[in-house]
């Protein structure tokens, strides 16, 4: 019986998928990896059995898949999605301490020069007619926990012509090279610090909590109950700093995903 | 034997009927070659292709050796008919050997037998098997390809052959050569052949009979000589050409028209004997031969009729000669070239074998004409007139 591990299309997810693969392989499982996918495709694939396990973010499931509109605390969020997804045959294992939330970032110098520190500041500038272009990934503009919700919460409209969509990893480069003024970043990405970005404060508390959590199909878990312990073991080792460092090893230090994943697992004594 | 009875083909060209072949009746006796001749679009190819059912006929009957081919399975029929198409149509993916062996293979011959047959046929069309068997068509010249095409059609030794302008793609010089070769071949094979051509010279040369078509109708079907000598109407006369009589000359060899027992004397003979011989034969000249029978000179009647002594005292010069195998056209050309009215005919060894005059040639041709002309030509002296008088008579 093969365990299919999924992963989304950005560094952290590729790392997590790789770690999971190596971990499970070390435990003697046959592992198949399907990564590089978009969020919803991956989730759908899991729901209909094409993927057994992958690492999902609590907020993403809450807002995007379960379409919950309420504001909830991180714990509530976890409980809520665990409950809702159980109905779909998905089991949320233990959440890690890492919270990979969306953030809007700017080059430090430009942010200071323009005096933008929060999303509200940004909104004001835009409404004052300043043309601040914004690099986003494919998903963000169309997600309820992305630009759609953000615009509702802050009550503004980002002009279409200022939105530059691209592959998720490219926003960092675009911002670094000053091809845009604002970039969409993920909080645990190593490049925020490395490239000296500042993230804008979410002063209206729009973004939900995004705790990284292994999610597994109930069927798979029932067949391999010991998987819970294995994955929870890895989950326990993850927090914001660890994730940032791991991501940075790949994106900044240009180590390969396989190498970084393998090193981490062995350093932590997991394999 | 191929028999066509009221054979008709009406094509449907975009709704309009086109009568390509119109009630054609024709019989090719076994072992003979019939040439289908006529202007472009007159229905020659269509007639041919109806015989092996590449084109289905509209009406009429086609019989081979008396059997109605309608009753024969199409594939069966075609395997018994050799077919040489105008464009040669060798399969470029097969060697010469494979090309020739295609039909034997289809017939399920043993490989060994069909290969041996291929080599034999190649030899037959004068191509060295050791050189050509393994070649591909593109490695052959046009003329060589053509010969392989003929060999292929002959492979299963079909009694009947259909050939659509088989030598059309070859330049005039090589064409002659290949025609000659094929004639020799046919002399041995004695296939029943239907052969499309648009070239009157080729038709005259290759055919036992010529069928001339016009707009789908068979206008005249006759021997080459009769077609040339007695075209049944203006169309045929025009088609065979203004110089059709000169064309007829091609049909006759010198040995057929010459006087084969001419007066023959040796230098030591008495001249009176020579004069006597000339008078007996009604010849104006007597050829003097050497010890091996080769012409060495001649004496002219008028010069010696009153002379005496040995022949060698009266030689008038070396006679002009022509090969007995040459055609009459060459003989006539030689006469004009040398401004003479007679030639000594010699065989391959140069021996004197006969005596031919312009007059004999004219008579030979005239013999056929007079058979059919209603009235005797007043211009022609009655047969049996003595030579001297006849000469004067014109």
């Amino acid at each position, binding site marked *: 019986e093969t365990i299919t591990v999924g992963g989304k299309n950005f560094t952290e997810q590729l790392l997590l998928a790789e770690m999971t693969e190596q971990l499970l392989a070390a435990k003697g499982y046959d592992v198949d990896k399907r990564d590089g996918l978009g969020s*919803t495709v991956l989730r759908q694939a899991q729901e209909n059995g094409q993927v057994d396990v992958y690492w999902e973010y609590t907020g993403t499931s809450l807002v995007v898949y379960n379409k919950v509109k309420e504001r909830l605390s991180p714990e509530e969020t976890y409980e809520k999605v665990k409950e809702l997804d159980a109905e779909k045959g998905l089991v949320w294992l233990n959440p890690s301490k890492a919270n990979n939330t969306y953030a809007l970032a700017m080059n430090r110098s430009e942010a200071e020069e323009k005096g933008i520190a929060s999303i509200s500041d940004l909104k004001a500038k835009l409404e004052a007619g300043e043309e601040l272009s914004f690099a986003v990934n*494919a998903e963000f*503009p169309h997600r309820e926990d992305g630009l759609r919700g953000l615009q509702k919460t802050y009550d503004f409209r980002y002009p279409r012509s200022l939105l530059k969509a*691209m592959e998720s990893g490219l926003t960092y480069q675009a911002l670094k090279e000053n091809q845009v003024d604002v970039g969409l970043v993920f909080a645990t990405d190593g490049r925020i610090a490395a490239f000296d970005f500042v993230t804008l404060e979410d002063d209206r508390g729009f973004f939900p909590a995004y705790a990284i959590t292994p999610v597994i199909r109930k069927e798979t878990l029932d067949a391999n109950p010991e998987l819970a312990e294995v994955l929870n073991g890895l989950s326990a080792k993850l927090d914001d700093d660890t994730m940032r460092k791991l991501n940075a090893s790949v994106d900044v230090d240009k180590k390969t995903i396989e190498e970084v994943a393998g090193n981490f697992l062995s350093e932590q004594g997991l394999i | 034997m191929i028999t066509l009875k009221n054979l008709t083909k009406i094509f449907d060209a975009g709704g309009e009927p086109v009568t390509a072949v119109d009630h054609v009746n024709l019989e090719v006796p076994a072992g003979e070659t019939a040439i289908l001749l006529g202007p472009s679009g007159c229905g020659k190819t269509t007639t041919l292709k109806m015989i092996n059912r590449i084109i289905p006929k509209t009406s009429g009957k086609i019989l081979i050796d008396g059997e109605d081919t309608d009753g024969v399975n199409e594939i069966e029929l075609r395997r018994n008919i050799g077919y040489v198409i105008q464009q040669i149509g060798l399969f470029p993916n097969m060697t010469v050997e494979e090309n020739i062996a295609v039909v034997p293979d289809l017939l399920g011959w043993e490989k060994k037998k069909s290969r041996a047959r291929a080599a034999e046929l190649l030899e037959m069309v004068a191509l060295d098997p050791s050189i050509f068997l393994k070649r591909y068509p593109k490695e052959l010249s046009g003329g060589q390809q053509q010969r392989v095409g003929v060999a292929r059609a002959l492979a299963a030794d079909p009694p009947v052959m259909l050939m659509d302008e088989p030598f059309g793609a070859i330049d005039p010089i090589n064409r002659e050569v290949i025609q000659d070769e094929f004639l020799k071949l046919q002399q041995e094979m004695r296939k029943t052949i239907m052969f499309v051509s648009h070239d009157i010279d080729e038709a005259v040369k290759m055919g036992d009979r010529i069928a001339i078509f016009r707009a789908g109708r068979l206008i005249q079907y006759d021997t080459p000589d009769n077609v040339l000598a007695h075209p049944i109407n203006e169309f045929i006369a025009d088609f065979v050409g203004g110089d059709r009589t000169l064309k007829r000359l091609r049909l006759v060899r010198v040995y057929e028209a010459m006087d084969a027992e001419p007066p023959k004397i040796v230098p030591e003979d008495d001249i009176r004997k020579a004069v006597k011989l000339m008078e007996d034969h009604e010849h104006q000249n007597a050829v003097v031969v050497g010890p091996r029978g080769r012409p060495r000179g001649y004496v002219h009647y008028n010069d010696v009729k009153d002379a005496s002594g040995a022949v060698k005292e009266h030689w008038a010069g070396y006679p002009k000669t022509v090969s007995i195998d040459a055609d009459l056209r060459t003989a006539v050309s030689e006469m004009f070239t040398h401004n003479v009215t007679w030639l000594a005919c010699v065989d391959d060894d140069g021996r004197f074998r006969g005596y031919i005059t312009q007059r004999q040639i004219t008579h030979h041709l005239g013999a056929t004409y007079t058979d059919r002309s209603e009235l005797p030509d007043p211009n022609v002296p009655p047969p049996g007139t003595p030579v001297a008088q006849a000469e004067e008579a014109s």
Partner: protein
Amino acid sequence: MAAAASARESVGNRVLGWIGLLAAFGFGILVSATGLIDEFVYYWPDIEYLAVQHMRLVAISGGLAIVAGIAIGIWLSRPSMARFAETVMQVFNIGTTIPTLAILALSMSLLGIGAVPAIFGLFIASLLPIVRNTYAGLKAVPAHMKEAANGMGMSPRTMLLRVELPNALYVIFAGIRTALTINVGTVPLAFLIGGGGLGELIFTGIALNEFGMMLAGAVPTAALAIATDFAIAQIQYWAIPRGVNPQR
């Protein structure tokens, strides 16, 4: 003969017309049944905005490729280039086997992200078929035709303009058609390197598993490809003189 062929062709066209109509009809049912029309309406502003971007990418990269491709093709076909031309064409032929994604990726590694590397990548991908066809078309002009032109005292320039190019035009157009059709279909990949275009809707649609959004990108792209092909085919049909136009 010619009449028969054209009659057959028009039958063929009629058949194709019917199929097109049926396909459109079937698609219409599918679309309305799945509520896709609403989706299209919903994404219309995006479609409009991105289609313009898309076409701009095609127009700039394709336009440059046509100009440069024909120029290079002509240059390679000149007798003075004969010695190198075949080698250069070999290299170009190898070039055409390089996948467009790879070309875009390499172009990004050279020029960074955004529209510029996208245009450059698309330009390179479109250039090759045009050069190849221009060169082949010019080389295929029969030698005897050039001899006739020479023999009547045409200068090389006149010969190029009056004899060679007109006779190569059909083949050159075929190259342009191939190049631009591929170009239109490749532009979606430009999204990956931040180049914009309808790929944004396609990739997002796939990522978020929103079929409607994906189609909102894919259908206009396919339509643009077909329209481009059709438009060039029309130009090809009408702009090329009957004497050298196998379609007329």
